[in-house]
């Protein structure tokens, strides 16, 4: 379409600003990449920018050759897929129903749910509950408690409420019931929000380490972040403990002396690279639903 001159200039300015922003992001990222390929003790001297000074693949070796890592990779994949799928399935449905103003008890449900965003029991009661539900030390403790999120329900509700009311009315006149309408019409029209929340949830599952750390003891069930933490810890605590032979105090931040920045950087790369592609993949769903046009006709 024809653009006026001022519009073209505005375009260039916008693109320029965006690209500048991208540089501020890329530089640290490339820096971390360089450090991950640099010898740990050399990194400590400082001064690495975009290129490794003392190239090595030893950091990746330490991180990757541990056989437990491959296992935890699969656990994370399973957790992310199952967790996100179940989350979307139940929470979207929840959000959809809540978007209907004629839903009976709607206000009650809303307050019932929002209350839990502000008041929660804390770790110990939750742990005891999981224990009673026999979820401790199982794979499912990472999935089941994450099935519903009130925040995401609100997001879904907001988006579903934007769907044109006339569409539903005409569908119902044709004999469509709620479930049918939801699955066959509402969902396909809402691919952007489903994609967005899927991305959020997938990233959440992929990045979590704390829940598994506390609720799971079995090494074979640990997801990748928890396992990586352990691998880095194992590597550094080995060196630390050798130091302990000579003296018995000054433990404050001692760990930091030994944690190889290079090792941490390599670990970060290993976990980040897979998940980065979730968003570009989901992006193609950020398009309008196909059926809205039919409304005009």
């Amino acid at each position: 379409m024809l653009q006026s001159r001022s519009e073209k200039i505005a375009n260039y300015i916008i693109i320029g600003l965006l690209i500048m922003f991208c540089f501020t992001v890329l530089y640290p990222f490339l820096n971390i990449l360089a450090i991950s390929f640099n010898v740990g003790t050399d990194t400590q001297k400082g001064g690495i920018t975009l290129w490794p000074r003392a190239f090595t693949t030893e950091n990746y070796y330490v991180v990757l050759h541990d056989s437990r890592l491959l296992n935890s990779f699969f656990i994370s994949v399973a957790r992310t897929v199952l967790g996100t799928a179940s989350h979307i399935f139940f929470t979207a449905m929840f959000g959809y129903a809540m978007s209907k103003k004629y839903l009976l008890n709607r206000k009650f449900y809303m307050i019932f749910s929002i209350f839990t965003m502000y008041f929660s029991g804390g770790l110990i009661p939750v742990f005891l509950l999981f224990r009673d539900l026999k979820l401790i030390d199982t794979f499912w403790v990472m999935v089941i408690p994450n099935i519903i999120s009130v925040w995401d329900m609100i997001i879904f509700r907001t988006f579903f409420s934007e769907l044109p009311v006339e569409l539903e009315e005409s569908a119902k006149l044709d004999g469509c019931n709620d479930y049918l309408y939801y699955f066959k019409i509402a969902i396909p029209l809402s691919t952007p929000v489903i994609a967005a929340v899927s991305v959020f949830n997938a990233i959440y599952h992929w990045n979590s380490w704390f829940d598994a750390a506390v609720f799971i003891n079995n090494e074979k069930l640990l997801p990748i972040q928890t396992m990586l933490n352990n691998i880095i810890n194992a590597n550094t605590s080995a060196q630390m403990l050798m130091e302990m032979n000579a003296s018995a105090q000054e433990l404050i931040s001692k760990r930091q002396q030994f944690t190889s920045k290079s090792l941490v950087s390599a670990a970060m790369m290993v976990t980040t690279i897979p998940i980065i592609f979730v968003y570009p993949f989901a992006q193609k769903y950020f398009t309008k639903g196909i059926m809205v046009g039919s409304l005009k006709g």
Partner: protein
Amino acid sequence: MRKPSKILVLLVTIITVLSLVLSGCGGNKTSGNTSGETQTPGTSNQPAAEEDGKPKPLKFTWYIHYDWFSPDHQWGERLGEKHILETMGVEIEFVSPNGAAQQKLATMIAADEFPDVICMDRGPEANTLMMNVGVPLDDWMYKYGNFVNEAGEETINMLRNEDGKWRQMPNWYISGDKGNGNSGWIINKKIYKELGEPRLETYDDLEAYLAKVKQTYPDVIPMVVDPQWRCKRVILGSFVENADVWAYDLHAVVKDNNLVSIFDEPTYKEGLYTIYKLFNKGYINQDAFTQTQEQFLEKLKSGNLAVAISGAIATEAEGEAGHIELVKNGPEYGYKMIWPIHKTGLNKDNIKVNDFSSLGWNISFITKSAKEPERIFEFIDWLTSKEGQTIIQFGPKGEYWDEVDENGYPIPNQRYHNASDDEKNLIPGNNWVGNTSFIDGAKAAREMLLPEGQRKWSTEAQVTVAFKTTKNSVAAYGIQPPVESEEGYIRSRLDELVNNYFAKMVFAKNDGEFEQQFELMKQEMHEAGYEKYLNYLNTKYQENLAKLGAK
């Protein structure tokens, strides 16, 4: 896609199957290692205490309560461990908190399920836990006897809980008077030489030296302190003789066998004033308060400083790492650890800037969840004996040593001398009941066999300076108030106040401002309940002194 749900269902099914298979596989806690069922009858190194016929296999869990801990190998992969596993049938599983130690412990307590042995720092938290779930060891103390012999009755008595029972087994305890430490001062050799090697003993000397450095080398940081000013106690402690530096961390000063207020001891203020003066004149690195450990190490490795002071300067990771880096430029480069700078007029041999506790680094205790507590104690007790320590630390006889010398220290053999550093680092196994005096003695003996140039920088720094400027802090054990008590809350406030005002004092623009902040600190500490807190500390301190007897 019109029906994302169908694809999802398919994916879900596949992954469900996969995950069920995976979770099915991971039924047991122990992965990998075979439990040593081989019952080889006793070989030459069997300790008498373990043997009765063929040893019944013993398996137990040992939880190490630190965020940073994660085992880097399975039990049995190190020489000593392998020997123990195969000839004694003992298998230990070291449990890590997966990086969330406090939470993990809380859940254990809430669920009332514990590992067999727990290792954690001494203190009020450990004491409470022990009294609730720990197994008393008194009945077996003399039966197996190694802790008594090696750590000493005094140490064990100090470790008794409030109900008089002994439960906690010390780790890296120190018997005798050979204390250790890592804190102190290092100087940049090259700069020192170029400036004529002036006398560097008192703070006046130091100030003059730093002024000269600043003048001659404008791009060099004259003096670098370590992150969070861990070295503060090193400076404060050098203003008196025979300082008890641990007291400064508790915001108190030991004076005439009593714990008194920092405001009753003028040298405390003198120390703070000196720090302020040096910082104000620009001699100390200006990022002293925001420096991360990484940045500190960077400075050490770059050599762009004349003097450095740190709470852990004599360790491999700090002083030695910096030295190794600098020495690459030539033999006249590098760092040297010097005797601590002190106040003019004091006897330098009585300067104590380090502390150590004969009680060691941390403790382990057996919990009520253990099925065979006595057998576990029997083993751990053996482990802390000279034989056990030798095996776990240096390997069994015939591997890297064949004989012991007159002190009982193993003499490294040719295989050891030919071994690479990496190989040597793989010899010691997991040792959580270390006998410091014995191990350090053995290592020192080993080190002394090497010609001078080859000795480790850190060992040399420790042996020549750090270990000589240290004092036993055993009397400080258990005097800290419990966190839930009123004094405990006062302590939290004092920690914040002191930290806050210290920064303000150091950053003061002039003497007047320094004085002002000092007075403000005094007032706020008083309002926070400083006296009550000190009272508590001193009462406990006196109790300890009494336990230790008149020395």
